[in-house]
């Protein structure tokens, strides 16, 4: 396969920067000529996938567009119409597919999302507050000077600082950030368990085309992509979702059920997700968290479910088993390989220590992003079939405990065994722990595509 041209791909696609702070600016694009000038001036600052051999920058900048944004830029009609249907419709219109209804419905979203006003996402990640503010100021000035864009909103996000240290925890107390897939051609440390499972039991990276347009994918073809090639290649799609977390409700539920559950509260929390709250995979250590495993890159994503068909170690409906079933459905991972997503994002809102009171209506949650070559086949599929439904896991209509959008309670069965220390346990009356507050579908263009967009030279024929 062809070697990746890292300078042509936006850095945000190729790596999670691991910076503790971010501000996602949401832009309305104005007159096309002014916007082109804005893009043109912005281009030199966009962070590419080039390796940071001279040390990390203080801040990074990346940009992505909704279909409305591309339309505002006056890309030619044949190009605009060649984008996949779900991207054309936008996330709000896909609510039926995603179960973004009732409490997750657009009437509860922040106004910029509810009214579908966002044309572009400008993602700024930074090592410290000063760098973040400085960079965002520069963006603001650039937008004003060129008259090409207006900042209509933003989302601050930050790693949770616990005991003075940046952590990888999110607000329910779980260490997060595991499980991103491994793709052919990506230069990063390969961890066993990230990619696909081969018949001989070893792991191999996924085809590049599962993330990047213009490369062969797992189905043995080039992924469906917009025209022209130069607009699509080295680009990808992103879903952005602002996911509010009802931290108080979660803590109460965990406390209450944790008192009933023979294994105790922490083990119950581990069974919900499939990882102990320190990140140890339950599959590798079912009885206790194990920092040695949790911190070991060779181990912490290196497991399969094939030997755990009963779910006695990791419950069949546990969050990570739902979102990446690995070999749980048989046929190695062949039914899963085309359903993987690359996650980015950070929590938002202040950290609330476990022993302090907390309210659901305080602004806390995750600014969630997922990247994939196909929104419909990858993100939407996982959301619709594996989170909001359970037939593939043979769980009928049961939804994911953490993310499920339930109207009247719900059940989560923790499978067990007859050992006496790991009994079956059913959790009922599950409230909604997470609520959607907005988001949309974005296209992250390559540097070449950005140049073409900024010079008005996108030509589909």
């Amino acid at each position, binding site marked *: 396969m062809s070697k990746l041209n890292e300078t042509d791909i936006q850095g945000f696609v190729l790596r999670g920067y691991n910076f503790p702070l971010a501000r996602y600016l949401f832009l309305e694009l104005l007159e096309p000529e002014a916007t082109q000038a804005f893009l043109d001036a912005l281009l030199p600052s966009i962070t590419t996938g080039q390796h940071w051999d001279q040390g990390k920058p203080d801040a990074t900048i990346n940009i992505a567009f909704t279909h409305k944004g591309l339309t505002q830029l006056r890309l030619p009609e044949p190009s605009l119409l060649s984008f996949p249907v779900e991207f054309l419709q936008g996330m709000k219109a896909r609510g039926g597919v995603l179960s973004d209804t009732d409490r997750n419905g657009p009437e509860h979203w922040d106004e910029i999302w509810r009214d579908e006003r966002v044309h572009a996402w400008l993602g700024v990640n930074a090592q410290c507050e000063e760098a973040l503010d400085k960079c965002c100021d520069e963006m603001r000035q650039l937008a004003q000077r060129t008259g090409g864009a207006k900042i209509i909103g933003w989302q601050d996000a930050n790693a949770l600082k616990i005991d003075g240290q940046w952590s990888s925890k999110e607000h329910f107390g779980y260490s997060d950030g595991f499980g991103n897939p491994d793709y052919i051609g990506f230069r990063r440390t390969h961890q066993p368990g990230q990619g696909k499972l081969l018949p001989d039991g070893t792991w191999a990276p996924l085809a590049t085309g599962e993330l990047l347009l213009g490369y062969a994918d797992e189905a043995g073809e080039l992924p469906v992509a917009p025209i022209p090639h130069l607009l699509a290649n080295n680009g990808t799609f992103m879903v952005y979702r602002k996911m509010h977390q009802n931290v108080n409700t979660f803590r109460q539920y965990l406390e209450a059920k944790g008192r009933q559950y023979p294994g105790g509260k922490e083990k119950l929390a581990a069974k919900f997700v499939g990882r102990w709250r320190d990140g140890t995979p339950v599959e590798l250590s079912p009885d206790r968290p194990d920092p040695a495993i949790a911190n070991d890159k060779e181990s912490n994503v290196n497991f399969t479910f094939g030997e755990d068909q009963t779910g006695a170690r990791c419950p069949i409906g546990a969050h990570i088993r739902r979102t990446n079933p690995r070999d749980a459905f048989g046929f190695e991972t062949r039914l899963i390989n085309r359903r993987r997503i690359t996650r980015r994002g950070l929590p938002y809102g202040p950290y609330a220590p476990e022993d302090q009171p907390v309210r659901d209506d305080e602004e806390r949650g995750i600014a969630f992003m997922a990247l994939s070559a196909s929104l419909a086949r990858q993100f939407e599929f996982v959301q619709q079939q594996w989170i909001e439904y359970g037939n593939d896991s043979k769980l009928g209509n049961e939804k994911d405990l953490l993310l499920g959008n339930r109207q009247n309670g719900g*059940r989560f069965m923790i499978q067990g065994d007859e050992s006496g220390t790991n009994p079956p346990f*059913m959790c*009922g009356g599950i409230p909604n722990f997470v609520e959607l507050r907005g988001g949309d579908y974005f296209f992250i263009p390559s540097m070449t595509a950005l140049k073409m967009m900024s010079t008005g030279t996108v030509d589909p024929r």
Partner: protein
Amino acid sequence: MPNQSGSVYGLTLLSPIIGDPHAPVSHDLQLRLILGSMPRDHESPFAKVDSTHMCRLTVMNDVIYVGMPACEEHLQLQYLVFESNFDGDLETYLRRMAQQIPETVDAVWSHCLGYPGVINPDAFVAYMKKCQVTTTFYFADVNDKTVGQTLTALQTQSAVGAFVERNAGVHGAPLQQAFLKLMSDLREAPAPQPGSGREDANLCAVAGAGASSIHE
């Protein structure tokens, strides 16, 4: 036997549709209108012929041209396709159709060539058999349970799930009492109606509150 898998029979019928150029509305279109408005839930005629697991009726207009270098060709007539998966043998099923849903059968098959009506069941059965084509390869995931057994099993599963949820944390004698009540409720519960999708509904009414996440 290719039409059969275990205790389930796979019937495929192709009945030629009357082609009358003088009819104000062609027979195939009339058929589509009738089929389009036929109830599909517990009021469905096929819920009455309750040995039916699943069935479909559709008008097959023509064969399909797949493109060069394949040749283009056409059927002289259109066919009504009836694909059914049911318990028991063919004769019994066809006779039940004639006996239990004669109006539906008439309404549908009166648009087909050579249809003799249901007044004479023997003639009807003979006609349907003439329309039958042999299933070459038949797959049934569950081929040893009747419709009734399946509906009761779904009702049971729903009740057990609700029971387990309701009694999490209940022990000893109260648990055993509750279980005995569950079993007697299940025995008394009316058989679920085919086509309704409400296998749990009857038991809920009998057992009282507690069931969650069952309904849409």
